[in-house]
């Protein structure tokens, strides 16, 4: 009798818990879902039945054809992709090198250098935009992807160095000592022994670096607003500003921006959470 009551209590508690979680999941996903389903409808379908799935009568790809015809969407996508991938590779390499040096070698000012490199975690790089623009103009890099990459590398380094330094501390001492006893050089220890070991942290750092860069509007707007150098976020912003009344085109362009990120996220979400929960970030 008693166990039965307890079980009933457990059941009703589980129902409440799942009801709350489902409700919030719906709140989080429905707006995104709504935009994507309506991107596949005709103009009439968008307005007459916004909340239903596209059917034989309302299905239409006219939004997508308009976006692809009227904007350089593929180019913007390629720009964002280039900037993001090149930045991630540079950040991961430079940050793991610096993190390794900070965690492995005793040298004067070690703690101060670590603190100096951590300032950028809290102070937003945007506040230096006036001088960054001057600098980029002087370097002759205005309206280039290189300008964005340089700024994003500087933006990504502090957090990446911080996370990787924490992670490097967990590498067992024996591994390094064994390599040293065999007379392996310091560079080789890093590239052949350490780099392969930090792979789990790399995924976390890559996601944390990637998301703000891919989504940024500020620096593309300031440093590379034209000449076909727009990133996808800026390109979409400009496109929607121009075609604000064309609902098919607006919904399709939003979907084109959302879908790649969602796919990437679903692939990497496990690593992201694992990195967080394994104590890489504290």
């Amino acid at each position: 009798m008693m166990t039965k009551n307890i079980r009933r209590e457990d059941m009703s508690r589980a129902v409440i818990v799942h009801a709350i979680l489902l409700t919030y999941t719906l709140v989080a996903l429905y707006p995104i879902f709504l935009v994507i389903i309506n991107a596949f409808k005709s103009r009439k379908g968008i307005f007459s039945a916004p909340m239903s799935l596209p059917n034989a009568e309302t299905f239409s790809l006219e939004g997508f054809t308009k976006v692809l015809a009227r904007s350089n969407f593929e180019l913007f996508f390629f720009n964002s992709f280039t900037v993001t991938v090149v930045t991630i590779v540079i950040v991961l390499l430079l940050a793991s090198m610096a993190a390794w040096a900070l965690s492995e070698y005793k040298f004067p000012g070690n703690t101060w250098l670590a603190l100096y490199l951590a300032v950028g975690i809290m102070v937003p790089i945007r506040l230096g935009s006036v001088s960054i623009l001057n600098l980029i103009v002087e370097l002759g890099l205005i309206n280039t992807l290189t300008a964005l990459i340089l700024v994003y590398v500087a933006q990504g380094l502090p957090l990446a160095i911080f996370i990787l330094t924490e992670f490097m501390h967990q590498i067992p001492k024996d591994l390094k000592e064994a390599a040293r006893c065999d007379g392996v050089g310091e560079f080789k220890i890093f590239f052949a022994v350490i780099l392969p070991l930090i792979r789990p942290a790399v995924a976390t750092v890559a996601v944390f670096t990637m998301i703000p860069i891919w989504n940024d509007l500020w620096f593309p707007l300031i440093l590379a607003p034209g000449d076909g150098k727009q990133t996808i976020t800026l390109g979409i912003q400009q496109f929607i500003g121009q075609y604000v009344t064309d609902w098919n085109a607006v919904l399709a362009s939003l979907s084109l921006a959302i879908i790649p990120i969602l796919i990437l996220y679903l692939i990497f979400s496990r690593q992201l959470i694992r990195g967080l929960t394994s104590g890489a970030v504290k």
Partner: protein
Amino acid sequence: MAHSGPMTDWRKAKLPVFAFLAPATIIYTLFMIYPLIDSIRLSFYTTPSGGEMAFVGFDNYRTILGDPDWSATFWNSFWNNMKFFAVHMLVQNPIGIALAGILSLPQLRFRNTYRTMMIMPTMLSVVIVGFIWQLILSPVWGVGVDILDIFGLKSLFGPWLGKEGSALITLSFISVWQWVGIPLMLIYAALLAIPDDLVDAAIVDGATHFEVFLHIKLPLVLPTVAMVSILTFVGNFNAFDLIYAVKGALAGPNFSTDIMGTLFYRTFFGYQLQLGDPSLGATVASLMFLIILAGVLFYLFAVQRRLARYQL
């Protein structure tokens, strides 16, 4: 952080240590630290169009804080930003904490799926999120009315984004919708790190999961809650994209959604008839820097220290 310090003496490997540290330090210094310091320097100069830069002391600060028009604009954006921040603290972080608490309940099914789905909006671009909600809240499309109608709340609907009284709050809620994932993720990770035996003992003593969360788990993750708060503060006082995407650089209606980020952009680049002014832009950026610095120092010295003492 109970790890040992660095082990190897650098004198055995001077060249490698230098080569490992130099590239990151140089790029970071050149494109982050130097511009931040140089911006503060620029705020003490004036740049007349075509003329030479001239040192003017605190004149730019006097203009922004003392000139009636400028100071009204500045304080308007400051208080709007405070409201923007307040909504995040009062809505986003409590929801994030509550959801993290529920997700960390033992034996919860579909935990990972829920978590993955709930964090999804956080991954999207702020610009895209702004447009999504602009469409949903648009009276032209009417889908917002339809959704409210399901709950019998149709009469509540209004052009919230267009009205001076409600635009800022609406935008704050849009931002909350997007960023709930951050407190959710960080606090969830901190909750998972709590040893099981602490919780089990209380459950055996007859405490409910809610009591355990309130009296055992929450106090233990307070340092993370404090960290989330300061991240929220820095993020909010640096926000720009959402307002710019939905309302443009003029942050309408009638500057009612103007925050520090949009003010910085307008001052720096200009808009309509007003020309951009790099010196005044640098001054606004320096004031933003001071505000953010004040928040971070408050966190480091007042909040984190006190919490650290609690932990002992």
